[in-house]
Structures are given as C-alpha cells and as structure tokens.
C-alpha cells in the first residue's frame, strides 16, 4: 500500500453542528450572483482595452502558403512571428512510447483542425476586430484530412505529425490470468460501443485578458480558468517571463467542467502579445468558437468481452478502447488522457481478478480533446454497465442482482484493483440495493407487463454503478506519466485584527460552492460563523501556490488544507484565550465566535485584538499575529473513491423515437458530506449533463473535417423539460485516507447517466429486437434501429 505512516489527524465528523461540516449552509457567494454582480471576464472594465478576434482556420488540414494582411492594419494584426521568442506547447507523458507533438500558440506553417488560431486581430470592439479578421487572406495548400477513428487507425492515412502513423500512445493495463478465466467461463459476451464526440459547453465561454503593469513590472493575465497557479507556471516557461513577474487571476468563472482546466493556446498567444503592447487586450470566446475550437470531449470506440460464470459473476474482462483525440496534445493532460483513463478504470466497482486492457490514442484533424466532467469514466461506465446487462440476460437474472454479486465487498476494503487503484471504503452493493428500492423494481416490471406492447410507448428500467476516483494524489499522477504532479493543495487561514477570518486558497470556485464549504471547515475548527468568512481564491497574488479545481479534488484537498491550517490556528487562539481567561489551553473550546472555558468566555475579537494590536497581552513567548499556511495530501496517492448506483425508468416512443425520463434515482456515497445541499446540487447537475451525453449531445464532422454543430440550434443541451428532479439517497462511509473522511464527488452524476439511460432504453426495446450501443441515442438512431429490426424480422 502506498500509504504514508501518519494517521489522518482530522477525524470524520459524526454529529454536525450548525454552520460546520455536515450542515446545509446556504451559500455565501449567492448574493452577488443574484444581484447580477458576478464579475466574469467580459465584465472587467479596464480603460483602453482593445478587443480580440482570432482569425481561425476554415479548413481541417492544410499548409499555409502565405498570409496577406490588409494595408493599414499594422499594429492591429499579429501572427506567430510577432509574438517574440516563445515556445510551442508540448504536452507529453513521461510514459515510454508516448509520441509528442508541437502545438504552436498560433499556426504558422500548418493547420490541423477547423478553428485553429492563426492570427490575433484587434479592434475597439469585437465587431471591429472581426471585420479586420475577415480582410485577411490566407493562401492554403489543402491536405487530405484524417477525420474518423477508422481513418486514423489506417496506416495508409496521411500522418499528422510526421510519425510513422497516427497512433499517439497505447497503454496496456491489466493483470491476472485471463486465459484461465475464459476457460472457466459459462458465458462469454462481447460488444462494440461508441460514445460520440461532445463539446463541453460552459455557459460562459473561455476568455483571456492581459496587460503589462508598469508599476509592479509584471504581466497580468486574467483568464476564465480553473487553475491559475499552474497556468502561471507553464506560461512563464513558454513566453519567458519569470513567475514572480507574472500574475494570473481567474475572476468569476461561468462554469468550467474541465474545458477551462487546460493551458489554452489563446492564453499563450495573448500573454505573449500583451507583454509587447502598451494597452490591455481581451478575448471573449463566442459560442461558435466554443463549439468548434474549444477542447472537445469523448469520441470513443470500445470493444469489450466479458467471461462470466453461470451466475453472471465476471471472471475476466478484455477491452480495447480507441479514442480519437483530435489534432494536438493539450497541456498538461496530453492526448492520451482519455484512452488511458478508460482502459485503466474499466473493471468498475467489481472484484474482477483478470483483465487485459488496451487504450489506444489516435490523432486526427479535429479539435483537440480535453477533460470534461467524468474524463473517460462516462465511457468506461457506459461500456461496462451495458455489458453487465447483457451478461445478466445471458444468464437469465435481473441486472441489478448480477451487479450486487460482482461488487467489491466492504470486508475487502481497502481493495487493490487489478489495475492498481486502491478502493478505500464503502458498501458498494448497498448502493444497488438502495437504488433498486427507490425505483421499486417489482412495480416497474409489473408496469412493463401491463403496458409494453399495448401502444407505441415502451417502458424500460436501467441501472448503472461506478466508482469515481477523486482527489488523486501524487502516486496517481506519476503513474499517469504527467510532467507535473498535482499531489497536494494549499491554504492560508488568517484572522484580521477585528476578529474576522479570511481563507486564501489556491483552488478556483466556479459553481462548486467553495466560498461556503471552505468556510464551514474553518467554522468546524475555529467556531466562527461561516457566513462571516471571506474565501479568496483564483488569484496567484492572493494565495500560496496550489493546483486548482479539477478531478473532484477541491473539497478533499483544499478542505484538508483549510482544516489543518485552522486546527493549527485554533491551538494558538486557545493559548491566547487561556491566557486572557486565566485557564489552561486545553480547557478552552471555540464556538459561537468565542473562546469558552466552562462558564467563562472571551470573544474571538479580544483574542485577535491581543494577537495583532496588543502584544503586551500575549502569553510569554507567544508570537504576534494569527495566520497559518498548510498543505494537504491524502494518505493514499490514488485518492478516495466515491461510488453510486443510478436507476432510471424511461418511456420510449417507438413512433417518434423520443425518450422520456420518468424516474431517476441515485444512491451514492461520497464519504463525509460537508454540505449535503451542495452535494445534491452536484449530483443533479451531473445527471443533467449525463442526460445530454445519453440523448442529445454530439459534435459530428463531415468527411472534410468540418464540424457540423456550431450553434445551440445544432448542438443540443438539456433544458428544464428534459431533466427530471433526481431522488437522491446518501450513504456516508468516511474515507480513511482524507481529512474528515471527505471524498470528492463533482463528476459522479455525469458518469453513470449515459449507462443507466441506455440500459433502460435497451430494456424497453428488447421485445422489439433492438439493441443500441452508441451515444447519443437520438430519435433518428432509435427509429433507424427499430426499422432495421423490423426489416430483419421480416426476412
């Protein structure tokens, strides 16, 4: 086991106190958003700002012969050569065999996807900048594009990056004796699954603003990003400005979901240019840019074979996952992130002892892939959970019963999976039982018998279970071969002389409620009112170094750091209070903004007054001031595993091909919950995105590599009528590896929804001979499948 020796200092909270860990505290950040006073990137008001329009490639694959800039546009159009001495982005894994490629901030010689930036154009308004971009003439020498997975796998296709073929990386996780499993199996079930390419769609697009601050002699970069410190580190290297002369700030960020969790080419280009200009410049991504040129997600083809006994217990699993990662590796994840994740996590919550996986990353002339809520796991869960349903059918059992029998049992915890992940705690099967009870399986089965076949509407029931690796630490990022290791988080907790508290954290809050939940952690240790705590984040100038908000890590990591810092600070507060109260420090507790010892108490304000303004009132040897900075790393380097089972009932209209979700239930366990209201909001929001993944969202390309979805009229995201209110049951098994037993949970809702919904639709349509194994299941796909099944039957 990769555990450090120290036991967790911050134990799980069993009985929540008001305002502290476990309480449904209303959010501190709501006030400004409800007033319309959120300040997002496009709202910043800095005098003299010029707006940017990027000239982007209209073709998928071409060499640039020449770029003709209109006369009189000097000082308003900038190409790569105008950005000074900067390095191309080169995102690589340290894993042997990984093929790297250069991704320049602006394309100069070759364009490799529609939307790739070529030039920066400036104007007083975005409209003027766009006018200018339209006047630039680029002479392209078009090359044949590589578009779909099969083309990218074909060694005869043109090579994008001068490699022998278009395969970027192959990973082969696994272990155990698969041949023995195959021999012992009573049933063997195989399928091919596809998950379509998606766009991420934060409602606010990306955006970057930058200027050179003459007084501080620093480059200021505002970016709608999830990870300002890390962006500063890499920008400094690429554009040659030292980190102490670079400040990166994320203002209010209107949703991220992973798409703002990368180094953006636009960040590099704009930062490099701003250093050479005397005025601020800003780019605000519009929806079309977001849909065609932002990092996209998914596009997987997975072939999966399971060998199972007569009860449906899986003895062995074989998988090949091919991911079309688009044109470039984006920093820091690289193109191989998705395929590696799918292949590495495919055994799910099950005790599968033999596994042979292959994750293949191919490149193509599409927008690069980046992280999107779930990263690889929605696809891994979709393929495995679809197959579990087919196994159940093959052995004639209820799918949820087969799930229960396959799951890792509580007494096996901590459990090391065949791919090396360490499951920390929980009763996985109990989540299935609770979801099954919530959805009332016998009642749904009775309804199906009653209704299916009587009209065009068919009812179906689907389950899906998963584990969600969260707050991965040092070991995990090293195992994945990342060049930077995101193993910890940091926070400073400081009192002000008037007795109030400020938390300075390196994470970035963009909807997760961290301005409230981190305050709750401080309240737990320091007895302060969380509504009165200021949480500052997202700015390299206001917090110590840290990694940012992604990978369901902030509550575990930053929560742990705030907890540790607050605990240390509490010791000092107690020493000072004890001196003021003339008692022993261990008699003092902190609650209600006071230090209390029996019947006597002193307000925290008196303690801070002594600490900051009256050192003469401090105990002998006590240093003035009250602030602490600490870091936190979970005890297990592979993080804490949350898990859940989703159960869904759908009605499929065989006349229109429309799917209606009738019931949706989730039984989940994310360890200790800091704020159940926020947890439920994350589950519900994740499920909504999973519904989009299952039913609506797809970014198709034509054979020339042109993206076909460039507006919200052709890229459909779920609206209020499509998303039911999810019923949620909480299991709460603390993680032994984290502060307070917290597990991350931000991505889970999105992981299981595609699997559960496709299982339900397949359950509904099975009597009609239809099986659907591709997302999204649009009305067209459903009607086509129904038509094909009818034709088949007629034969």
């Amino acid at each position, binding site marked *: 086991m990769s555990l450090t020796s120290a036991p967790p200092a911050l134990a799980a909270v069993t009985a929540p106190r008001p305002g502290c860990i476990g309480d449904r505290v209303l959010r501190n950040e709501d006030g400004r958003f409800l007033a*319309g006073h959120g*300040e997002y990137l496009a709202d910043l008001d800095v005098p003299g700002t010029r707006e940017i329009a990027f000239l982007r490639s209209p073709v998928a694959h071409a060499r640039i012969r020449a770029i003709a800039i209109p006369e009189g546009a000097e000082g308003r159009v900038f190409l790569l050569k105008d950005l000074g001495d900067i390095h191309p982005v080169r995102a690589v894994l340290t894993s042997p065999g990984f093929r790297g490629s250069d991704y320049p901030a602006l394309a100069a010689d070759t364009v490799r996807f529609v939307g790739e930036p070529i030039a920066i154009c400036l104007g007083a308004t975005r409209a003027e900048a766009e006018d200018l971009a339209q006047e630039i003439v680029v002479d392209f020498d078009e090359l044949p594009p590589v578009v779909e997975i099969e083309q990218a796998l074909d060694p005869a296709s043109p090579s994008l990056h001068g490699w022998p073929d278009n395969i970027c990386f192959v990973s082969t996780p696994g272990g155990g004796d698969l041949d023995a499993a195959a021999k012992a199996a009573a049933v063997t079930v195989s399928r091919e699954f596809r998950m379509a390419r998606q766009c991420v769609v934060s409602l*606010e697009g990306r955006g970057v603003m930058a200027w050179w601050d003459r007084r501080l002699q620093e480059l200021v970069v505002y970016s709608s990003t999830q990870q300002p410190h890390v962006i500063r580190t890499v920008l400094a290297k690429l554009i040659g400005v030292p980190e102490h002369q670079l400040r990166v700030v994320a203002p209010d960020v209107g949703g991220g979901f992973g798409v703002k969790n990368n180094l953006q080419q636009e960040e590099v280009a704009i930062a490099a240019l701003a250093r050479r200009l005397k005025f601020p410049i800003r780019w605000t991504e519009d929806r079309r840019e977001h849909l065609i040129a932002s990092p996209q997600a998914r596009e997987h083809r997975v072939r999966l074979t399971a060998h199972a006994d007569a009860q449906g217990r899986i003895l062995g699993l074989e998988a090949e996952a091919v991911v079309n990662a688009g044109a470039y590796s984006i920093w820091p994840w690289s193109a191989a992130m998705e395929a590696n994740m799918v292949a590495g996590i495919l055994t799910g919550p099950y005790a599968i002892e033999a596994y042979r996986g292959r994750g293949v990353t191919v490149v193509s002339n599409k927008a690069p892939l980046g992280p999107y809520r779930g990263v690889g796991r929605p696809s891994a869960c979709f393929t495995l959970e679809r197959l579990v349903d087919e196994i159940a059918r093959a052995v004639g059992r209820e799918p949820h019963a087969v799930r229960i029998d396959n799951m890792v049992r509580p007494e096996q915890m901590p459990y090391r999976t065949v791919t090396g992940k360490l499951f920390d705690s929980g009763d996985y099967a109990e989540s299935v039982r609770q979801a099954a009870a919530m959805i009332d399986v016998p009642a749904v089965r009775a309804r199906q018998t009653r209704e299916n076949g009587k009209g065009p509407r068919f009812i179906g029931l689907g389950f899906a279970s998963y584990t969600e690796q969260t707050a991965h630490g040092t070991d995990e990022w090293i195992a994945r071969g990342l060049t930077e290791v995101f193993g910890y988080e940091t926070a400073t907790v400081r009192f002000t002389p008037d007795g109030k508290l400020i938390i300075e954290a390196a994470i970035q809050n963009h909807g997760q409620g961290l301005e409230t939940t981190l305050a709750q952690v401080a309240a737990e240790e320091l007895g302060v009112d969380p509504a009165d705590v200021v949480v500052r984040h997202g700015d390299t100038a206001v917090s110590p170094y840290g990694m940012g908000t992604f990978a369901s890590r902030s509550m575990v990591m930053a929560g742990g750091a705030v907890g540790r810092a607050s605990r240390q600070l509490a010791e000092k507060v107690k020493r000072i209070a004890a001196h003021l109260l003339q008692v022993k420090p261990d008699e003092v507790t902190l609650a209600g903004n006071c230090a209390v010892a029996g019947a006597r108490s002193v307000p925290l304000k008196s303690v801070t007054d002594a600490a900051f303004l009256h050192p003469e009132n401090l105990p002998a040897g006590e240093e003035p001031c009250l602030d602490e900075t600490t870091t936190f790393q979970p005890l297990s380097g592979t993080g804490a595993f949350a898990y859940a089972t989703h159960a869904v009932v759908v009605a499929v209209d065989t006349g229109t091909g429309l799917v209606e979700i009738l019931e949706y239930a989730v039984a989940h366990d994310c360890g200790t919950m800091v704020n159940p209201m926020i947890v439920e909001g994350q589950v519900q*929001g994740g*499920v*909504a995105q999973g519904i989009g993944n299952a039913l609506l969202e797809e970014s198709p390309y034509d054979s020339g590599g042109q993206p076909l979805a460039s507006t919200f009229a052709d890229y459909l995201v779920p*609206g*209020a009528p499509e998303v039911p209110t999810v019923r949620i049951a909480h299991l709460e098994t603390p993680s032994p590896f984290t502060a307070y037993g917290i597990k991350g949970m931000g991505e889970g809702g999105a992981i299981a929804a595609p699997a559960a919904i496709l299982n339900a639709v397949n359950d509904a349509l099975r009597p009609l001979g239809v099986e659907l194994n591709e997302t999204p299941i649009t009305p067209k796909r459903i009607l086509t499948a129904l038509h094909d099944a009818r034709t088949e039957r007629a034969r």
Partner: protein
Amino acid sequence: MKVSFTLNGEAITADVEPRTSLADLVRGEHRCTSVHLGCEHGVCGACTVLIDGKIARSCITLAVALDGTAVTTLEGFEGDALMDRLREAFRAHHGLQCGYCTPGMLITAHDLIRRKGALSEAALRQGLAGNICRCTGYAGIVAAVAAAMDEHGDTARAAAIAAE
C-alpha cells in the same frame, strides 16, 4: 445612428452602429453587466431583459430598433418585491451554481409568475425551456420558482380577499 429609450427608468440617448445589439450597448457604456452572453444567437436566454415589460433576448435585438421603448435589466429590479422573493428562493433552493444563467432565469421566472400566476410543474418547466443552465440540472431552479409562485399566488389571493 441615434436612439433614445429608457434603461432601468433612466432616459438615455445613444449613438450606435446599425449592427450594435442591445446587449452590447447596455453592457458596454451603461455597465449593465447582469446581461450575460451565452450564445449570441437567441437560444440560451442568459441575456434576457424586458422591453416594454415583455421578455426579450437582448443579444438578437438591435439597439436601433428600441427608440421610445423602456428597457429593464436585472439592475432595474431593485425594490421589486417579487424579484426579492425569487432571489431568496433561488438561494434557499440552491437554484444557482456558477451564476451565469441566473439573471436571465430570474427575469424569465418573474415574467412567468406575473403572467401565469400558478402553473403545474410541467408547465413551469416548459416556461423555463428557453433558458439554459449548464450547472444545476434545473431542480433547484424549478423548486425556487415554484416556491415563489405559490407564495405570490397566496399573496395575490390574500390581497383579493382583503379588498373584498
């Protein structure tokens, strides 16, 4: 081109290009940055405002077409009892996460309640169908609007009874 209208009750005259959208105009010079742009093609509803009391998408409304109208953004709802109630309900029901869709949601919800009084959940969801939220999955928003709607109905009924 010159155009005159009232913005949140204040008379303004602006010199705009024919292509300038209402959203760009009020966000720019007048700093009404509650007007958010999520698509700029009339689908997402983040830019929702009132024009002469009716909801409209400011991203696809040309400023030049507004002569003589009254435009209200979220900034113009100060002291509005129903909007205050909606804000409270959005907070109590966790109807917002990143806050980007929120101003448009609030204005749409305000309009629904004013025009419709009471609605079934399905009709309420239809009424919100023109506003995309990517974060919340709508449950908190629907619960918040329903709560404000019920209470508004009660208040209206109480006022009617009191008037009798």
